[in-house]
């Protein structure tokens, strides 16, 4: 398949690589770029493990063409920690919101977009925001608590 150069911003720095035209963003990020934080759960848009942020919105990278991110800003969980762990990551640890951790990068992305838009979410807002992210292990409660706690901490700060 023909390869196309793709130039985009990944977690704040410009990156460029060749992508086959039919390649999805998940495979592109993981194999082409080497960012392993988005996870492959289903490859068909039903689990949310591959969630990334493109220009401020959550997207399922398994359903996004790699060539479609040309010139756009992509954020992944590996870009969250900036010298120290992100408050969301801190709260996930504090609340034991990960067991196997497979859903965690996607959860963090959905949570980040929520909190960027809505600094004072209700529990229902949080549930809505992560409703596309499946978790096998935690029963969701600790994840919801962690996201609400992050919002509270920010308001106090």
């Amino acid at each position: 398949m023909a390869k196309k150069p793709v130039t985009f911003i990944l977690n704040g720095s410009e990156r460029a690589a060749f992508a086959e035209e039919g390649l999805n963003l998940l495979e592109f990020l993981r194999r082409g770029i080497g960012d392993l934080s988005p996870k492959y759960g289903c490859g068909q848009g039903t689990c949310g493990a591959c969630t990334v942020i493109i220009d401020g919105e959550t997207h399922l990278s398994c359903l996004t063409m790699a060539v479609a991110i040309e010139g756009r800003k992509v954020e992944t969980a590996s870009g969250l920690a900036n010298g120290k762990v992100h408050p969301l990551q801190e709260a996930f640890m504090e609340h034991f919101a990960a067991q196997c951790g497979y859903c965690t990068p996607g959860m963090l992305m959905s949570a980040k977009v929520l909190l960027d838009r809505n600094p004072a979410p209700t529990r229902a807002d949080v549930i809505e925001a992560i409703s596309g992210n499946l978790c096998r292990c935690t029963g969701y409660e600790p994840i919801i608590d962690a996201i609400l706690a992050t919002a509270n901490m920010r308001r106090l700060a």
Partner: protein
Amino acid sequence: MAMHRGRGFASINYPIGMNLGGDPSQALVHSNPDGKFTVALSSIDLGQGMKSVTRQIAAETLGIPVADVYVDTADSDTGPHCMGSFASRGTHRVGNAVIQAAQEARAVMLEAAAEELEVDATDLVTDGRGNIHVKGATSRSITTMAACQAAQFKQGRTVSGRGIFLIPLSEVDPETGEMTPVSCFAHAAMLVEVEVDDETGEVSVLDMQSAYEVGRALNPRLVEQQLVGGAWMGMSHALWETTEPYYPDRSHGPVDFNNYLMPGPGDLAPHHISVLERPAPDGPFGGKGPGEMCANPVLPAVANAVYDAVGVRIDELPITPEKVLRGIRANGGARPKMRLTRTQFAGAR
């Protein structure tokens, strides 16, 4: 058409581990040149906390800080043998193996320290903060790091230990069918409240109250994490999850999330948990294993609650709206269990 509330109760005895081949697990412990310890296991941490708990157990037994222990579960080809992470056996079986291995390693560490301090090893104690000293004389001390380094570089000893935990296989008595497949049981009891819609057959779990008896909660936060997640999974299995067609149909097998119904974060029920601690005599520091038991009581409790709510007894999981509706129809309508008032109840007795 109406909504019906019902309550269901279930309690379980949950065997820790299994009987197959004695269900053994091994552990190897050794010190490194920096005085820290490695615990080698083939037991896999799936997120349940196996590494954390075995690390605590090793540190406690060796008498050193948790920070000085590294648990390596990287490779089941090169690590000591383990039956695996299942049957809620990890804490109990592997924990016991780790204790045995750590005791042996600790004994060598104390011998090495004794040689350096020119005292008898039986007079030495550890302070859990990285020091070994003479009982009652804290000034006559050596760090665990110095002791391990002396063993390695001066005395030519390996500060290491081997551990295995095995419960001899119990055979079935051909006459009576009797056997003792398990030495350790955990227990749980659960009360579930549901609401059943007699028009759609839908069941929602409104509330769960539980008590789990886990031996000793070696890491209370990890225990809580397992109970919360595991009970939710039990609810999910009670009401949603299954592969269609089901075993023994030959096309039974994994399907995708389009065909496998899994509830999301919108389908939760408040869960009030009491953790009861009754240390197990043969458990590592009394620990059993919450594991699968987290999910188990939820399924019968939900089935009982549905029966209580609409009088439909469902004995095949999951309890889908279709099964509930068929049951209601077969009964000629919802038949909530008659509840006696307090006086009626007293009169009936």
